[in-house]
């Protein structure tokens, strides 16, 4: 059990294996792990499997709560009854998540849980999961979190916040869930001193300076009130219309529900969908209200920076930069923001 301290606790890096070993007794742990092409979340059993000095994972962690393919219910003609698929729920820990992804999860919570009816599948997974966030010391060049209201030390969505200070970790419980994790671990820590906090603030400041604030986001949002803005045509010109940006985005949450029949049984599945696909808005009549890439791209940008602000009071972009890295034609959302903001 780790005692509660006002300023948080300090864990020496050499005790990380102990920490993980202690946590695995209570939780299933997922954390960043090194793969051939960058880091991705994987089940962690030992601390060696963790790669905590990473930029960010390739895919966002949204799939933990909202998998790309999810069986909702199924039937079999043999027993003539439909059955609900229950997600497998175990106490889970997402360890070492980046602050932007934790913030994105807090946005997804708003989408799936803030209004009735809540999404039971999402809820069950989410309630069983706690998030241990690791602040960024060296953000990537594609990061732009500070522009969109996030930051290298953003605490929203995290149960425990971790800061890497040289060879030590400063850990702070932010929620009752975080306190609970602390009661479950048996590892030697010491209370943080104000000296440590100064060191932490210093690192955070440095990180903040590395993430350039490149544009006045409010001016951009103001411009978006003009739905018919002249800029869309030009911005969408080079877009290929694939779904990379939406599938890699940690906040994109659109889904499709289809029924599949396999002989005498069948199931209802939920899969990710993307507003960049023509099928997304295709009517049964054959009419498509968003017939071209221009309209679809506008929807993507508008949803993130305009509609979401209206519905949930948040900008649904956390500045993780995944869409920038993976776009096959190098469409850069920062460039889009700048182009629109500067349009006269």
């Amino acid at each position: 059990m780790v005692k509660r301290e006002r300023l948080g606790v300090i864990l020496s890096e050499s005790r990380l294996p102990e920490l993980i070993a202690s946590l695995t007794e209570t939780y299933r742990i997922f954390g960043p792990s090194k793969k051939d092409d960058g880091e991705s979340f994987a089940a962690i059993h030992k601390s060696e499997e963790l790669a905590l000095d990473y930029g960010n994972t390739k895919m966002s962690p949204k799939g933990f709560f909202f998998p790309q393919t999810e069986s909702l219910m199924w039937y079999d003609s043999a027993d003539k009854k439909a059955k609900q698929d229950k997600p497998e729920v175990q106490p889970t820990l997402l360890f070492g998540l980046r602050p932007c992804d934790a913030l994105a999860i807090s946005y997804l919570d708003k989408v799936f849980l803030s209004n009735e009816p809540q999404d039971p599948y999402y809820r069950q997974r989410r309630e069983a999961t706690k998030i241990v966030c690791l602040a960024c010391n060296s953000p990537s060049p594609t990061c732009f979190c500070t522009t969109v209201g996030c930051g290298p030390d953003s605490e929203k969505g995290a149960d425990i916040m971790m800061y890497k200070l040289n060879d030590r970790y400063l850990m702070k419980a932010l929620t009752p869930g975080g306190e609970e994790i602390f009661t479950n671990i048996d590892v030697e820590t010491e209370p943080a001193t104000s000296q440590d906090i100064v060191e932490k603030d210093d690192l955070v400041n440095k990180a903040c300076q590395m993430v350039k604030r490149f544009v006045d986001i409010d001016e951009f949002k103001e411009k978006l009130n003009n739905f018919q803005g002249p800029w869309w045509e030009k911005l969408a010109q080079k877009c290929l219309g694939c779904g990379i940006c939406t599938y890699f985005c940690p906040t994109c949450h659109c889904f499709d529900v289809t029924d599949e029949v396999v002989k005498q049984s069948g199931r209802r599945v939920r899969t990710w969908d993307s507003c960049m696909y023509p099928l997304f808005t295709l009517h049964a009549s054959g009419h498509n209200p968003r017939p071209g890439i221009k309209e679809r791209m506008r929807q993507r940008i508008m949803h993130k920076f305009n509609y979401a602000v209206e519905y949930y009071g948040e900008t649904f972009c956390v500045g993780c930069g995944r869409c920038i890295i993976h776009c096959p034609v190098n469409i850069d959302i920062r460039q889009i923001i700048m182009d629109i903001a500067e349009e006269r």
Partner: protein
Amino acid sequence: MKRAEHEIRSNVGKLLKQKKIDVFIGYEKGTLPLRTSPCFVSSEKEARKLIWNSFCTNNLAVYLPHIMSRVKNKRSTRVGIICKGCDSRSLVELIKEKQLTRDQIYIIGISCSGMVDYKRILSQVNSDEVIGVDETADEITVRSKEGERVFSKEENLCEPCRTCKHAVPTVYDMLIRTAQQPRQATTSDSTVHDFLMKPREERWQILEQELGQCIRCYACRNACPNCYCKECFAEQTKPRWFGVTTDLTDIIFYHTIRIFHQAGRCVDCGACVRACPMNINLRLFTRMLVDEVKERFGYEPGVAPEELQPLATYSAKDKQDFMIEPE
């Protein structure tokens, strides 16, 4: 490289000024190191942002069917485009498939010395710390906070460029030569041969491993110049041919059919592979059809504009060794 870039800019500027073309599709500087981005230029002034280097990998022919289906006045609209060898082969196929006519496009061909795979280079340096990139005839120098690293182009070429036999465009209105010699591949591609050496079960296993990573973003389809169908079979709903899930069977269904749709049309430009965010080696499968079409029908897509596509024609003497003959 610099000279070619200058030539492109001045020629495009001239063409736009003389109103010989309405818009030009080329490359501009990307927002990330080692990247370029397609760009659409419609004034002489804008032509200054055009660039040319070894990272101009996108196959620009992909934009033409969409542009042509959108323009109101098909007769008088003329689109300029910069073409490497592979892009021009794609164009030839598009013309054969009547997606555009030759006089609707003005092709600035560029004799290509092979494109460099930026992912391969980024995997060897810390991509977060790259500051700048310089290019000479045979080398790429990556400057980062850790210092400079020099990469040989030859070793980091895109996979299809290694065995490219038509680096000089097969059609063009104007040809720009770079300081380097156009690439003349001496070795033939062994991808298919090597894969066939493996036992059947292992081949299926590799297929499952490769395609198992697919997230169904459809980037491979959308980056492919041949995939211009207004409604893709993957998106047909009456009937729905296969599920939208990430079950392996659905993913394999999608890829086998999409790749088979390229039979006799695939120019092996590698656009699908480069677009794939999960780095799936799609070329392992697409290349097989390229080789098989060559061997069986003696057809090479995009090379001869007057030749009919192999699946759009037939010969009474075609081999039928694959059909069953009951004893």
